[in-house]
C-alpha cells in the first residue's frame, strides 16, 4: 500500500485557481465520497484551506492512483487537465508524509508558524473519519502529523511573537495591562488600519470601545460596525483620560495630539498606564508625549520593527522545526515498511490455525463422548496454545523495519512452515490484523521518547 498526495498550494497556484479549487464550496462530503468510490483504493482525505487544496490517498498502484486523483481534481472542479497540471504537485509515501507534517507544523504556511493550520488539518481528518474514508494508513499519517505539529509548537519558538502590526499591538497591550477584559479602547480617526487594530483588540474581550473622528459621520459609521460609542471631537481629552489604549489613525497632516494634551489627560488618571498606538502616517501624536511617565507610545515604525524582529526570530527556528519533522517522517517511514511483514504474519497464523483445526477434526471420534462444556474447553485450550506460540514471532515480525530483513525473515518462515501451501491470505483476516497492528502501534506510541521500533536484525 502506498501513500499519495496530489494538490495545489499558494506556492504553486495563483489565488484565482485556488479559489476555483476550494472544496468547501461544493462540499467536502461529496468530494470524499467520490474519492472513496474510485477503483484504485478506498482511503482518502481532503485538506482544503484558502492557501491549499490537497488530496491524500492510500493506493496499491501509484500510477493509477495519480491518474484517478488528477481526473478527480479536473472533474470535480470542472477544469481541464491543461489548466490544472502545471500547478499540481504529487508526492508519494514518506515525501507525502513529510509534506503533510510540514503543513501541520506551519512550515509550509504563507506566514511561517501561523497557528490555525493545525486545526485545519485536524478538521480535514475529522471530516474523512466522519465519512469513513480513512483506514490504517491515513489514520497513522494524520495522527503523526498532529504529533509533528504539536512538537514543533512545544519544542520550538516557530509560532512565537506577533508577525503583523495589529497583532504586535495587541501583544504589547497584553504585556502592559495583562488581561484586556476591563480595558477601554479609544479609536481616533476612522481609517482602515485603525479599524483592523481595534477589531483585534475587540477579540480580546475589551470592556468598552470609544470612537472619535473629526468627521462625525465617519465615526458613526465605524461605531455601528464595531458596537462602539461615538465621542464628540471636542471631548478628546476626556476620552483620553477615560481610556487605557488609544489607537490613532487619522489622515491629519500634523500631530493632533500634543504632549500638553496628553499631560492634561493623564492628570485625572492617577498614573494609570496609557498605551498609545499611533499608526497614522504622518504621525498623529507628538513623539515627545512618549516621555511622560506611564505613557507608552508606539508608532507604525516601532510596531513594524517589532514585527521584523519576530519574523527573523521565527526564521531562526525553522531548522529546528524541520529536524523535528524529519524525525517524525523517519518514524512514519519505519512504520510503513514494517507493514511489509503483514502478509507473512497472516500466513503464519493461518498455517497454525489450519494445523489446529485439522488435529481437532482428527480427534473428533475420540471427543464425541465429552460434554459440550468439555469440548468447548478443548477448543479453547488449543486456541490459547496457538496464540501463545505466535505472540513472540508476531511481535518480532512487527518490529522489522527494513525491507531486506523482512524479505529474509519471510523466506525463512516460508521454508520452515511451508507457508506457500496455505495459499492467498484471506482478506478479512488481513483487515483484522492490520487493525490490530494499528492498535498496537498506538499503544507503543504513547511514551513518545521511546526510540522508533528497534530493529532486531544486524
Amino acid at each position, binding site marked *: 500500500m502506498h501513500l499519495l498526495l496530489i494538490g495545489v498550494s499558494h506556492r504553486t497556484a495563483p489565488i484565482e485557481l485556488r479559489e476555483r479549487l476550494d472544496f468547501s464550496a461544493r462540499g467536502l462530503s461529496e468530494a470524499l465520497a467520490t474519492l472513496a468510490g474510485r477503483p484504485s483504493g478506498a482511503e482518502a482525505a481532503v485538506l482544503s484551506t484558502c492557501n491549499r487544496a490537497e488530496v491524500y490517498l492510500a493506493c496499491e498502484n501509484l500510477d493509477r492512483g495519480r491518474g484517478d486523483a488528477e481526473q478527480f481534481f479536473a472533474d470535480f472542479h470542472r477544469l481541464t487537465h491543461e489548466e490544472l497540471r502545471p500547478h499540481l504537485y504529487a508526492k508519494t509515501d514518506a515525501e507525502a508524509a513529510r509534506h503533510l507534517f510540514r503543513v501541520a507544523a506551519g512550515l509550509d504556511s504563507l506566514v511561517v508558524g501561523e497557528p490555525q493550520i493545525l486545526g485545519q488539518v485536524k478538521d480535514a481528518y475529522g471530516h474523512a473519519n466522519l465519512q469513513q474514508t480513512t483506514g490504517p494508513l491515513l489514520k497513522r499519517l494524520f495522527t503523526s502529523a498532529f504529533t509533528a505539529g504539536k512538537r514543533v509548537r512545544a519544542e520550538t519558538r516557530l509560532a512565537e511573537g506577533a508577525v503583523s502590526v495589529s497583532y504586535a499591538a495587541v501583544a504589547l497591550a497584553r*504585556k502592559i495591562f495583562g488581561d484586556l477584559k476591563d480595558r477601554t479602547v479609544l479609536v481616533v480617526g476612522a481609517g482602515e488600519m485603525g479599524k483592523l487594530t481595534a477589531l483585534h483588540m475587540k477579540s480580546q474581550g475589551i470592556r468598552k470601545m470609544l470612537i472619535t473622528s473629526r468627521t462625525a459621520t465617519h465615526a458613526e459609521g465605524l461605531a455601528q460596525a464595531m458596537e462602539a460609542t461615538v465621542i464628540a471631537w471636542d471631548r478628546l481629552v476626556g476620552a483620553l483620560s477615560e481610556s487605557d489604549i488609544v489607537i490613532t489613525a487619522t489622515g491629519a497632516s500634523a500631530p493632533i495630539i500634543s504632549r500638553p494634551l496628553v499631560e492634561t489627560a493623564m492628570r485625572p488618571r492617577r498614573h494609570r*498606564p496609557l498605551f498609545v498606538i499611533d499608526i497614522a502616517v504622518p504621525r498623529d501624536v507628538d513623539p515627545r508625549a512618549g516621555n511622560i511617565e506611564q505613557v*507608552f507610545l508606539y508608532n507604525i515604525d516601532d510596531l513594524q520593527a517589532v514585527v521584523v524582529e519576530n519574523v527573523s526570530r521565527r526564521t531562526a527556528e525553522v531548522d529546528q522545526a524541520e529536524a523535528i519533522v524529519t524525525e517524525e517522517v523517519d518514524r512514519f517511514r519505519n512504520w510503513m515498511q514494517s507493514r511489509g511483514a503483514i502478509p507473512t504474519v497472516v500466513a503464519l497464523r493461518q498455517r497454525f490455525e489450519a494445523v489446529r483445526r485439522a488435529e481437532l477434526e482428527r480427534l473428533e471420534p475420540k471427543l464425541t463422548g465429552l460434554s459440550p462444556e468439555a469440548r468447548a474447553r478443548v477448543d479453547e485450550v488449543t486456541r490459547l496454545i496457538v496464540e501463545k506460540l505466535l505472540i513472540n514471532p508476531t511481535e518480532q515480525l512487527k518490529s522489522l523495519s527494513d525491507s531486506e530483513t523482512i524479505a529474509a525473515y519471510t523466506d525463512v518462515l516460508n521454508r520452515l512452515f511451508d507457508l506457500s501451501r496455505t495459499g492467498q491470505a484471506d482478506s478479512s483476516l488481513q483487515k483484522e490484523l492490520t487493525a490490530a497492528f494499528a492498535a498496537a502501534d498506538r499503544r507503543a506510541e504513547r511514551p513518545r521518547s521511546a526510540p522508533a521500533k528497534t530493529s532486531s536484525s544486524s
Partner: protein
Amino acid sequence: MDPMNIVPLGLYLVAGLVYAVHFVGRSRPVGRAATTLLIVGALSHTFVIGMLTMQAGHVPFAGTTQAISTFVWLLALSYLYVEIATDEHAMGVFIVPLLVVLQAIPAFQPGAEARVSAVLESPWFGVHVSSLLFAYASFALAFVIGITYVLLFKEIKAKHLGFFYARLPSLEVLDKMNLRAVAIGWVFLTVGVLVGWVWASQARTAVDLDPRVQAMSLQDPKIFVALLCWAVYSFELYAQRAIGWRGRRAAWLSAVGFVIVLLNLVPVSYFFTKSHNF
C-alpha cells in the same frame, strides 16, 4: 561550617542554577524542575528548623544567625506560594540567589546556640520575631518583583522588546504583586513592632533588668532602622492609595525599603545594636 544548614544551601544553589537555565531557555520542563528543586530545598530547610526547634524547645530565632536561616526559610516558602499562585517561574532567578547568599551565613558561620536568656522566655518573643521575619520575607519578594517591573518597564518604554519582554509577566501583574507583597509585609511589620514595644515596656518592670532591655529605645540602631522601614513602606502604601503612585515609583520604594531591611538584618544586627544582640 554547619552541616545542617549546608544541605538546604546546596539545594537552593542548584535550584538557582536551574532557574537561570529556565530563564534563558524558557523550557517548561526545566521550569518545573527548578520549582521541584526549590520545594525540596525548602522541605529540607523545614526539617533543619524543625530539628533545631526540638533541640532548643522553641523556634530557632534567638540569635541573629539563626534568625537569618529562619528568614530564608520563610522567604522560600512565600516565593513558592507566589509561584504556585501565578504559575510563573521567571522570577525564581531573582529570588533564589538572595536565598543562597543569606543562607550562606548560617551555613558557614553558625553562631553558638545562644543560651536562651531569661528575657526571651516570654510568649511575646515568638510573635515578635516571627511576624518581623515574615514581614521581611514579604519585603524581599516585593523588592525582587519591583526590580523585574523596572526591567520590563524600561524595555517597553525604550521600544526594545527583548529578553525580559519575552520572559516576564505583564506590568500590571508585577505592579499588583509588588503592592500586595508590601501590604502583607506592612501588616506583619506593624504587628511585630507593636508587640516588641509592649513586650519591652513589660520587661522594664522586671526585677533583674537585662542591660539590653535598657537599651531599647529609639536611639538603638536596630529599632530606629525598623521604624524607618515602617515609614518607607507606609509611605509607599499611602502614596499608592492617595495619589496613585504605582508602577515604577512603587517599585523603587520597594527597593529602597528592602535595602534598609537587609541593612537591619545583617550589619546592624551583628555590629551596631545594643538592644537586640541575643
